[in-house]
């Protein structure tokens, strides 16, 4: 599972084993926003996001995402050398509280919401590569 999120991503090939995915073009950052996205790239991000697209959806999403990315090209013109990034509006970090035991969510109530449960655990289909 984990390896699917490495980059360049490793994908299971039809014959088993893994191969590097061809991303189409190098994503080198040269200070310019890239050209609009290709169908191959949309198919790639859909796989990463665990979404299955029909060919019609792939074409539609590609043109729509390209439009948004083209609009985003306006930030290209900005002088941002030396400007620090903001990840969060206020610099609150490492917010801690006293470690005092307290009631947690009711286990039966939580498990009652799960699609499939085995004893007190969430039950899932087999993990890739393991025997059923």
């Amino acid at each position: 599972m984990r390896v699917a999120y490495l980059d360049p991503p490793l994908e299971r090939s039809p014959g088993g084993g893994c191969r590097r995915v061809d991303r189409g073009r190098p994503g080198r950052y040269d200070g310019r926003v890239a050209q609009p996205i290709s169908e191959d790239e949309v198919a790639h991000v859909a796989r990463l996001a665990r979404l299955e697209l029909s060919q019609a959806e792939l074409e539609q999403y590609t043109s729509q995402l390209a439009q948004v990315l083209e609009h985003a090209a306006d930030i290209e013109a900005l002088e941002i050398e030396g400007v620090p990034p903001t990840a969060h509006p206020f610099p609150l970090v490492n917010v801690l509280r006293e470690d005092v035991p307290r009631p947690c969510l009711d286990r039966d109530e939580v498990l009652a919401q799960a699609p499939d449960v085995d004893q007190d655990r969430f039950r899932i289909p087999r993990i890739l590569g393991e025997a059923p």
Partner: protein
Amino acid sequence: MTGPVEAIARAVRQGEVRAVEVLAEHLGRIARTEPDVHAFNLVTSDVAGRQAEEVDRAVAEGRDPGPLAGVPVALKDLLCTRGVPTTCSSRVLEGWVPPYDATVVTRLAEAGAVFVGKTNMDEFAMGSSTEHSAFGPTRNPHDLSRVPGGSSGGSAAAVAAGFAAASLGSDTGGSIRQPAALCGVVGAKPTYGLVSRYGLVAFASSLDQIGPFALTVADAAMVLDVISGHDERDSTSLPGAQPSASSRLGRGVAGLRVGVIAELVGADGMAPDVAARVEEAAAALSAAGARVEPVSVPSVRYGLSAYYMIAPAEASSNLARYDGVRYGLRKPGADITEMYTATRSAGFGAEVKRRVMLGTYALSAGYYDAYYGKAQRVRTLIIRDFEDAYRSYDVLLSPTAPTTAFELGAKTADPLTMYLNDVCTIPSNLAGHPAVSVPFGRGTDGLPIGVQVLAPALGEPVMFQVAEALEAAAPTGGAA
């Protein structure tokens, strides 16, 4: 201006009217017009009935029923309510029943509010029209052929239609203020961290805030005061006590400095009637004694682009949790990857998929610096420009939305056109600042127009002070 929240709470507290009677009146309105408006995913008459009876019991026994005693409130359907389904208007959460209450829900309940229902929204709060709901669109009570705005369109419509005296929404890029403008009600996005987000289903965590809708500025401030305050269950909650949002109401605006944001009044696609109303609003504040001037906040024009990198990036991460394992929908698959893919492909609507893919792309190696990293730097520029402006002005003024309510279906085929609705509201989310939309007259089509008051972080008191002056000067009433 006394609104229904103040009026109902006072009457119920003084025993002039019973909470169950107030509730019956609102449920009656829901029964009559909700089939046309579709503001709710679920009307919670039973819950509301029990709450109203408890309020009446408290009054009868001489106990304090709370500041919002008997006030019917609607909750956006991404606020967790224990024992009551919470869908985010998504198939992926259909049937899910949260095992806990959001902190805002607990605070409203303790204040004596009565929950009439869970309101419709764009799926996972992604949209500006409430058309991206898995359960069908909400319609604008002022004109049923028009959208109510979004993503909190159901919450805005519920107040405009008189289904509730107030409601809660969430605002990531304008999702409270834009529907408030389109439905002719007051809608406020508080300072980031002022209101606990424990139990708010996350969209973009560095931007999301919960806030109130109401018919009047004073009502909105009153509801905000009930829901705000530190919560140790939200690590982004601001520590310490903050001044009441109502603390500067009734003071007028004489001597205040107001800047009208030139880049937003002149934004691409700004309708002339909307821009004209903002100028009228500025003139009204000036006539009331404020010093009003145009001001340039140059980087806000890049807000939209930065937002549509940052918000989808955070969403793509937040929505990874919908995997069919612990709650909600599961579609079968031979192995876990197939199960994930089948579940997410069936459970998410088109707009959510679009944003998840956009965000996944913006975060992927090779593009991270060009898109997400750059957008975060733009965010810094916007904060700096606001800081500069607030050295000279107490509040800033702008349109809330570029147009009045548009026709259903007018923008669904073209996502970018839909995104442009948020051009005036996004900068406040990127900065973490509060902003409120106040109804200010109507457009040439007779539909409501909202004017936005922006304030610096924790500037809610002065923001509502100015909003109240605009309300008093507004050419016509707001609600339907």
